[in-house]
């Protein structure tokens, strides 16, 4: 397999030497139907430098790509921009094989790597704004804490006007194409938005500050090289503007109706609410968590203004699919939403009450009282559901008008 994997040239002196994971489908709870890539980069400066590594099982693929350019033993420095295991999983083995002079990470990166791998390799902490000379080229480091881990940092290569952005601007998309201009914009937007919603969203306030911080450096950037998915060499301005839009979390004229159902009664309610929302001119997505995955729900909520959630009551609880989805969504901290809870029940009805409580914890503004219906909804009950849809639509319009 030695000669199967080659490096891909990014600029005159920078090569992509990562790995393609066609098979991964579960990224700590985020479903990745298109697989992913773990991007590592080789800088062929006087002092040859490797930026990040790959997930552990892909070490040989990375080394093979490096070998297509240079003997790995000639790598002098390794930089770890992000300690998460999909980028550091083979770092220890890579250090053993390559024996670089020095390995660098942010101060928190050093601590995290030590706590993950418990080995004696020395990793040197770099400070925010610190530079490293590679002889004929220079790297500058920028801490980007909480995008999306405390250790995260960017590395900027001035001579190639290239920003290594680790997980920022990334996406889970396995392709043989390595650059954004080789893929359609609709695919890029969908995958980047899904990634943002599932990984970056909780730290949106920091994203806005970091974008300002990068702009204030005056760095010229013609390439953004993330740790997953394609390298941005054409649509840089576009993806940065999308990040600003997603981070701003402005409510849009869109409702997402998310529910789980036992015997289709809650589903009938969800359908009636959704039809009324759409009829009132609100773009509406409806997701049955009996069929959809939580990461699809996160994607839909990213650009929503209303979150309407429903569940049947099972053994005095909400359905487990909704507990799963709500736990996940709560952690992602979507902001500026209005919402309501609904559902059918047989004899007690705690599920809807508990859903509404989670909406409140998520700081979702309750647009209408929770709606519970005993057993299957009749014509009158479905009309009440339609009224709920209309009320939410009206409240959303008010909110959009005042924001």
């Amino acid at each position: 397999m030695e000669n199967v994997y080659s490096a891909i040239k990014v600029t005159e002196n920078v090569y992509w030497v990562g790995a393609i994971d066609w098979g991964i489908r579960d990224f700590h709870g985020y479903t990745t139907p298109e697989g992913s890539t773990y991007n590592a980069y080789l800088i062929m400066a006087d002092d040859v430098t490797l930026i990040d590594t790959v997930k552990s099982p892909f070490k040989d693929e990375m080394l093979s790509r490096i070998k297509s350019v240079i003997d790995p033993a000639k790598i002098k420095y390794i930089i770890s921009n992000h300690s998460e295991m999909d980028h550091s999983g083979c770092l220890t083995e890579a250090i053993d094989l390559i024996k670089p002079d020095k390995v660098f990470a942010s101060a928190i990166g050093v601590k995290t790597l030590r706590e993950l791998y418990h080995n004696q390799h020395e990793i040197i902490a770099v400070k925010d704004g610190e530079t490293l000379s590679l002889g004929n080229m220079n790297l500058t480091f920028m801490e980007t804490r909480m995008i999306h881990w405390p250790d995260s940092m960017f590395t900027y290569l001035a001579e190639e006007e290239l920003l290594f952005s680790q997980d920022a601007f990334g996406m889970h998309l396995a392709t043989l194409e390595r650059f954004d201009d080789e893929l359609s914009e609709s695919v890029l937007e969908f995958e980047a938005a899904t990634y943002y919603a599932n990984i970056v969203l909780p730290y949106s306030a920091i994203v806005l500050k970091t974008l300002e911080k990068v702009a204030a450096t005056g760095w010229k950037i013609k390439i953004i090289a993330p740790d997953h998915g394609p390298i941005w060499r054409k649509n840089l301005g576009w993806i940065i503007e999308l990040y600003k839009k997603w981070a701003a979390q402005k409510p849009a004229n869109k409702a997402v109706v998310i529910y789980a159902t036992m015997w289709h009664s809650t589903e009938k309610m969800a359908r009636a609410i959704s039809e009324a929302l759409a009829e009132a001119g609100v773009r509406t997505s409806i997701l049955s968590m009996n069929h959809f995955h939580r990461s699809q729900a996160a994607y839909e909520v990213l650009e929503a203004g209303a979150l309407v959630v429903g569940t049947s009551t099972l053994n005095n609880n909400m359905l487990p699919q909704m507990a799963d989805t709500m736990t996940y969504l709560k952690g992602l901290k979507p902001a500026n939403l209005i919402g309501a809870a609904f559902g059918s029940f047989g004899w007690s009805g705690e599920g809807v009450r508990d859903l509404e409580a989670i909406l409140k914890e998520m700081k979702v503004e309750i647009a209408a009282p929770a709606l519970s219906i005993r057993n299957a909804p009749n014509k009158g009950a479905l009309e009440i559901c339609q009224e709920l849809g209309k009320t939410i639509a009206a409240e959303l319009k008010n909110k959009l008008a005042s924001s």
Partner: protein
Amino acid sequence: MKKYVCAICGYVYDPAKGDPDGGIAKGTAFEDLPADWVCPVCGASKDEFAPE
């Protein structure tokens, strides 16, 4: 009143601003924050904070 910095994520608690989302009123000193108060950005506990 002193500002305090989160050692994990770098968030700065400013007593003049409080933490409105966490139910902390303006003018609340860091020392007076409840023991179960957490960093609004990363969720770290109070003992991760140090004076700025």
